[in-house]
């Protein structure tokens, strides 16, 4: 057994232990703290699996944004778990079912075909035509651009769904995500110092995403985090769902993506095809617009809708 494999085994045990804690913890708050650590540990797993792009996404969205979302909800919900948890019979049956599923997945993992099928050579071969150097960015924006386009629509639908849950009498009111938060000097200082740095880091991650690990999701989520931080500090007010400015930013990325996709018919004869001479610049333009929209969407999804006036 090599030293690296022993370290991998330790990491796997740690991830599984944190997962068990997250499921088994009695109170909700520690469970969510466990979930945030789980997201960060998964990011290390992704680095070990040579997927730095996924690691950045997991740390930013899986651990960060989802963690803030869940913590915010846990602080508002006053429910406690009741005295009687799920019945012992249900637990045994669920345990057996989950064991069977895990065993089946383990069997599949141990009997995967060798050599493994891969599209990596084709992805690399097509890179010069796209003008970007990061094959994952090429897959996201060029080869499988339709997936990314539809995923942006899914995010927009989620934003609309969240807004639809606004109580009737509160439509257009400001969402109050941290309504009772006191103005804490420390958070105000952090927001003033960190937000400018964070915006630069976010833009940098998008920019290097063309050739190195990074991209619109990861950078956009960092921008969203900075927006949320400045709102948390009370330096700017959250935007209401009726804000035209906010709505324009939300649709800017998907709209530009769709426009370029349809322009593909005229320029190179197919939906979502880029003319080779402009491919690199079109991809960068789409990524830039998508970054702004992603930042707005993630921010809106974390803040949630306006709450009922008391």
């Amino acid at each position, binding site marked *: 057994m090599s030293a690296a494999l022993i370290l991998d085994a330790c990491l796997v045990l740690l991830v599984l232990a944190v997962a068990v804690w997250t499921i088994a913890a009695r109170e909700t708050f520690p469970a969510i703290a466990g979930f945030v650590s789980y997201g960060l540990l998964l990011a290390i797993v992704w680095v070990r699996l040579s997927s730095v792009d996924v690691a950045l996404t997991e740390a930013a969205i899986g651990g960060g944004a989802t963690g803030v979302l869940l913590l915010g909800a846990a602080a508002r919900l006053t429910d406690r778990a009741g005295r009687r948890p799920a019945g012992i019979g249900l637990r045994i049956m669920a345990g057996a079912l989950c064991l069977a599923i895990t065993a089946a997945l383990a069997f599949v993992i141990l009997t995967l075909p060798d050599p493994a099928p891969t599209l*990596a050579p084709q992805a690399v071969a097509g890179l010069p035509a796209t003008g970007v150097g990061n094959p994952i960015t090429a897959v996201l924006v060029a080869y499988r651009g339709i997936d990314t386009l539809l995923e942006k629509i899914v995010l927009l639908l989620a934003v609309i769904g969240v807004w639809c849950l606004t109580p009737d009498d509160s439509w257009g009111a400001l969402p109050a995500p941290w309504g009772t938060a006191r103005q804490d000097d420390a958070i105000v200082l952090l927001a003033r110092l960190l937000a400018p740095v964070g915006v630069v880091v976010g833009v940098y991650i998008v920019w290097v995403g063309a050739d190195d690990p990074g991209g619109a999701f990861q950078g956009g989520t960092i921008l969203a985090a900075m927006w949320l931080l400045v709102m948390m500090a009370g330096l700017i007010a959250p935007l209401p769902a009726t804000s035209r400015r906010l709505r324009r930013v939300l649709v800017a990325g998907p709209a530009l993506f769709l426009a370029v996709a349809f322009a593909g018919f005229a320029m190179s004869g197919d939906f979502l095809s880029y003319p080779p001479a402009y491919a690199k610049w079109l991809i960068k333009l789409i990524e830039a617009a998508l970054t702004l929209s992603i930042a707005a969407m993630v921010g809106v999804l974390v803040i949630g809708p306006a709450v009922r006036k008391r």
Partner: protein
Amino acid sequence: MTAEQLYGLCGAGLVGLGLFGLITAELPLRRIVAFNLLGGGAFVVFGVIARRGAAAGLGGDPVPQALIITGVVVGFAATALAVTLVRRLHEETGTTKFDQDELPPETVKLSDATLSGGNP
């Protein structure tokens, strides 16, 4: 055993754990956490398949890796919608439990009144 198999088994275990939490958790918020745990495990299994496809100088097959990134984002969107639904339920009824027998009678009335008040 190779590192890929080790992480694959880790992903399989996480799927099982997450599913168990999803079925047995009492509070909806805890079910949402368990759902995300399950998702993480499924992505790791898929990531192992991507890692095994390492070729052409890359550390893994970029196609599944890109699909995982898309999956993480879509999972976040679903989580945000679910959390907002639970928050609204709590706002209306003062609880997030689905079991109507456990609700105090006056909260049920309040929720009925708000629901009918919403449709004049």
